């Protein structure tokens, strides 16, 4: 069974890429083929997710000891194609791959070392995002069903490339591979906005989007390379591109330095934290643009507004999540001390400001599409806060919110296709009283709008409550977390303000509608619209009623990050980790088999052990108090 899932997982990435190649050849039939492929992809993903749920359920609450050489908390991907082991979890699977794309050394490829690998896998953090990529593709295609008549082959081809890039990035466990997929999404997005956009500003919007995100992500590349170079294996000095190995190296290095710190030598730790600060800045540069976090959001309204609505669905549901996922996958585990020290105070403040700012901007818009675009800024600010709370509640909530926001906001955008197909406009001032004209459409719009304002029973409520709880869990001294929680709660209130105002303008009041595009009077939801949007609305309710289905499988990986966060908090506060919480790294030490790189309970300095040839910069002014 297990090896089958590896093939299926490979298909999840390769199917969209293959479709991207094939679709341009299909001509007029492209949209049917595209729908078929997206449904096929949905099936494959469903199989992978079901398999992953079983594999993840085996892990339980804590990361199983015995999977790795030390007891460090790691990401442990499942279903890795090219895994040298044959069986399933605990049955020989190593969670590593042999498929090396590029090796920077003459050493054998199957030993850990500086190899860029095709290393993909599923774990608790990405499984639902991959599912999201697959689920949202169907409404994205159906939302373009009528509108995308110009060169449909190319259009759907680029759409699948976009999806493939996003799926690949979510699945990657190799930092370079991640970066390649991460950047790959830019190209299709650029052509889709610039080539198929509706308005006159589409070229400008596409250029701005491309340059802005590229400028940010080039800094991220610097950050990624920096992390790799400065965190070699403390024993062998070899650098690695594998994310789990890199995590371990970072933890080991910090442990050693913290050992020194506790025995009275603060130099190494200060140096490490100082370095982390710069790496944090570089990594965050790209992710903050991609999310986006205020004030790096100015590409967003133009891009979301100018893109064809199906593309906007993908942009908001998938691409925005790449940024937050980058924070989750890279920033938190690779620069934990900086994430603790600067995450909430600096980035969190910007994000909190963005929550309120985005809400006010959304209220000020006259176009529904732009309003939802700005509401994304507001919601994702909340998500960033949840991530940097760096504890179980906040992280679970944030991962869940990535899915929830993807579904509800993506569905909102998709639903706009209804208006665009009939009237070619989404200007609020031209509509009124649609509740009587289109009761079906109105019902779906109400469900999605209420989901977006966090009505309990619908999906966003759960993740927002979890993130709020994460912000309350004040474990860092001197952090204004309740203040951020208040801002976040006010953000929920403001979201109700602009959403209900939109509903009032468009669906209440006497009937008012602009001239229709076609000769015949437009009718209520057609069957394919009902299927696409109604399914998403029902999904919102199901996710809101049974969220534990999603939270359960991510427990082990969230616990790993939470443990990293706890250790980082101790280091930043400069206190001895005397608490022994069960998932903590230090207490699980004795249970791990033959810990090679690490002493038992207390992080003892390994006699100023080798810090490797990675080039430690000289300690500058001590930061990270």
């Amino acid at each position, binding site marked *: 069974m297990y090896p089958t899932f590896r093939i299926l997982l490979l298909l999840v990435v390769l199917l969209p890429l293959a479709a991207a190649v094939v679709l341009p050849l299909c001509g007029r039939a492209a949209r049917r083929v595209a729908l078929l492929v997206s449904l096929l992809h949905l099936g494959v993903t469903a199989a992978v997710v079901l398999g992953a749920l079983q594999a993840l359920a085996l892990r339980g609450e804590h990361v199983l000891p015995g999977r790795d050489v030390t007891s460090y908390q790691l990401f442990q991907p499942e279903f890795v194609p090219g895994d040298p082991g044959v069986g399933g979890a605990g049955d020989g699977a190593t969670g590593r791959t042999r498929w090396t794309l590029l090796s920077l050394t003459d050493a054998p490829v199957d030993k850990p070392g500086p190899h860029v690998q095709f290393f993909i896998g599923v774990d608790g953090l990405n499984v639902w995002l991959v599912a999201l990529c697959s689920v949202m593709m169907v409404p994205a295609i159906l939302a373009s069903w009528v509108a995308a008549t110009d060169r449909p082959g190319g259009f759907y081809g680029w759409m699948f490339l976009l999806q493939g890039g996003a799926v690949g990035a979510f699945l990657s466990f190799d930092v370079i591979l991640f970066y390649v997929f991460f950047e790959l999404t830019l190209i299709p997005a650029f052509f889709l906005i610039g080539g198929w956009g509706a308005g006159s500003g589409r070229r400008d919007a596409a250029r*701005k989007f491309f340059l802005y995100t590229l400028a940010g992500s080039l800094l991220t590349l610097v950050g990624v390379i920096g992390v790799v170079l400065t965190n070699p294996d403390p024993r062998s000095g070899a650098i690695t591109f594998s994310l789990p190995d890199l995590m371990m190296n970072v933890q080991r290095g910090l442990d050693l330095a913290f050992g020194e710190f506790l025995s009275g030598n603060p130099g190494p730790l200060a140096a490490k934290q100082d370095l982390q600060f710069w790496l944090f800045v570089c990594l965050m540069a790209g992710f903050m643009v991609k999310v986006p976090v205020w004030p790096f959001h100015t590409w967003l309204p133009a891009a979301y507004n100018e893109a064809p609505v199906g593309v906007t669905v993908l942009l908001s549901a998938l691409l925005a999540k790449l940024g937050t996922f980058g924070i989750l996958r890279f920033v938190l585990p690779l620069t934990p001390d900086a994430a603790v020290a600067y995450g909430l105070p600096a980035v969190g403040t910007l994000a909190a400001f963005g929550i309120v700012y985005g809400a006010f901007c959304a209220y000020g818009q006259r176009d529904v599409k732009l309003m939802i675009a700005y509401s994304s800024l507001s919601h994702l600010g909340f998500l960033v806060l949840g991530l940097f709370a760096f504890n179980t509640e906040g992280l679970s909530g944030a991962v869940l919110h990535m899915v929830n926001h993807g579904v509800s906001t993506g569905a909102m955008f998709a639903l706009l296709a209804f208006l665009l197909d009939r009237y070619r406009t989404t200007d609020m001032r031209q509509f009124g009283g649609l509740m009587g004209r289109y009761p079906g459409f109105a019902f779906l719009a109400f469900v999605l709008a209420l989901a977006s304002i966090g009505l309990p029973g619908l999906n966003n409520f759960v993740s927002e*409550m979890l993130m709020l709880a994460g912000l309350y869990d004040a474990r860092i001294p001197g952090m204004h977390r309740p203040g951020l929680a208040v801002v976040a709660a006010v953000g929920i209130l403001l979201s109700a*303000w602009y959403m*209900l105002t939109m509903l009032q303008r468009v669906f*209440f009041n006497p009937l008012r509608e602009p001239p229709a595009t076609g000769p015949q009077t437009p009718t209520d939801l057609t069957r394919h619209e009902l299927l696409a949007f109604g399914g998403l609305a029902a999904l919102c309710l199901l996710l809101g009623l049974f969220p534990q289905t999603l939270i359960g499988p991510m427990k082990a990986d969230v616990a790993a990050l939470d443990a990293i966060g706890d250790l980082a908090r101790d280091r930043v506060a400069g206190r001895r980790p005397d608490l022994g919480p069960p998932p903590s790294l230090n207490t699980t030490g004795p249970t791990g088999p033959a810990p090679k790189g690490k002493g038992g309970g207390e992080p003892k300095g390994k006699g100023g052990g080798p810090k490797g040839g990675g080039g430690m910069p000289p300690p500058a002014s001590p930061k990270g108090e």
Partner: protein
Amino acid sequence: MSDPLGLALTILGLLLAATVLTALLSGNAAVRTFVIALASPKAAAQFALRSELTINPLLVRAAHWPLIVACGASAVLAVQLLLTVAAAGDSVRFVSDPLTWFEAGKLKASFTFVVDPLSSIMLAMITFIATWIAIFSSGYMRDEHHRPDRGYVRYFAVMSLFVFSMCGLVLANNFLLLVGFWEGVGLCSYLLIGYYYDKPSAAAAARKAFLVTRLGDTGFILGIFLLWTLGGWHTDLTALFDHIQKNPPDTAALTTACLLIFCGAVGKSAQFPLYVWLPDAMEGPTPVSALIHAATMVTAGVYLVARCAPLFALVPDAQAVVAWIGGITAILAAFIALAQTDLKRVLAYSTVSQLGYMFLALGTMGAVAPVFAVTAAMFHLFTHAFFKALLFLASGSVMHAMGGVIDMRRFSGLRKVMPVTHLTFLCGAAALAGLPLLSGFWSKDMVLEALQLGAEGSHPHAGSFYLLLLVALVTAGMTAFYTFRAYFLTFWGEVRTPEEAGHHAHESPAVMTVPLLVLAVGAVGVGIVAEPFTHWFSGFLGHTPALQLAGRLAGAADVAHHFNWGLAGVSTLLALGGVGVAYMAYGTGGPERVPAPLEPVYALSRNKLYVDEIYYALVVKPAEWLAFMARVFDLFLDSLARLLAAVPRFVGNWVRPIQNGLVQFYALSMALGLAVFLSFVVFRISR
């Protein structure tokens, strides 16, 4: 079946089934697909792809049956539940096993319900009142059959959801679950107030109701999480209260948490300063107003504070805030009600005022025994539900007969035209005014007594209870006056009807008058039966474990309810005085003449103290201005980003002339550069 939890869950299930069943009758294909999708996505997909999407209009006309049957059955079950709980003896509480909703780290939300005297009495009240309102609605909303968009089904589906949410709210034993039902109630009120969606005033009122209550809910949610951190990371009410009892947290933090929780109650129960949504909420169909004002929605806030008595009992400052907010609201709303010309608006402000009374009683929680304070508040809530539902339904009957007109200046003398409505309205008005022996009299007396006892006690804020007692008495007089002003203006004098009513304005059909009669009996008799001589109500409610816990925490002695002749006499005098003044001024049925010296006061009351205008200037306008400024600033940010992006191009333009292709120029610049460099080096060395 005598298992209390089973009964309670059956009630919830019945109401939910009614919602689903009504939704399935909807002419809206999206609604039906949605409902089917929850049961089976596959069936929904098939339905969406294959089935006929329209529905038989005859089925639509039966849309009221699920609600009526479910409510009626629930009311019967609720009475049985009441008897079961009463038979179970002292300190009885049934908590259902928690079923996880979501859980991560220390936050755990679960589906868990509690049945105790407090929740069972609420449940009985809600389902009983809702049954009669549902029956009345089926008559009142009959005209909606003819509307093309089939609002009839929408109305009854949302009503079912409304009653379901309210029942869930009083049964929930987990704060996040409670928030779920709490917001569900808010959503249903939003949809029902905005029922006439093509009416701009209704649309605005619906949004206002949702947003203003949401403002309070923001505080509520923040309060819940603060309690979560203080109360050992519990969100289950029973566990949280037990934890707080064993480990009392810092008083300042607990006061903050209680006040934040109280924010939610202020919003939902329409207290000052968030009461502004309730008077506008009458834009919905009149039975909806009856439901909102009597049984559901506004009672949620009172219930919440009563339920959280173990927390509020610990913090005297929070109690004082509750009492003061209640007092201010009571007198303010009564003042505004004095000069309203819209019959429903008078009733709406009287609801706000009476809710203030309930919070006055709750505020004395620490000064008298919490059991007594909560009993007074809940008893007033209980009797108020009867007469306020009655008054609203009666005014709905008037509105129905008057062709949608509810302005008291345009009709009078209706007692001859609508005898049943007149009689029942009189019962309700007399009960609201607190005329002796009617139900409002007994409950109001209990509130006044709680205040008096609080003032005599040793509470740190005992002094303010004296003042609040005075406020409550003045309010009582004003209540009697404005209630009977509305009564005389509507039913006395010569017969006048507006032209919208047609030529033969007549009494409403039996389906509407029977509920009026039933509720009138309740409004007259429920008070005297339940409390003053039998002490059933206080005895029953006194068995609530949460209230007993609160009593132990507050350390106040148990107070037996004894009839207070002095207070009762004063309040009787005030009520009769109010009625008398109203008769002198309006006994002829209008038109209204205001004595010249009272003109400014009248205008102030008529214009609702200009509160809406003040809010518009202080909150709405600035928010809109901020939104505009945010938009402008966003353009500025965008141009800033463009400016930064233009720097490379600008630099490129600037240095481009250097690349002019002239070899001589390159040679010259090389030579010059070398010279500068060399001279620099020489200069450095020679120093």
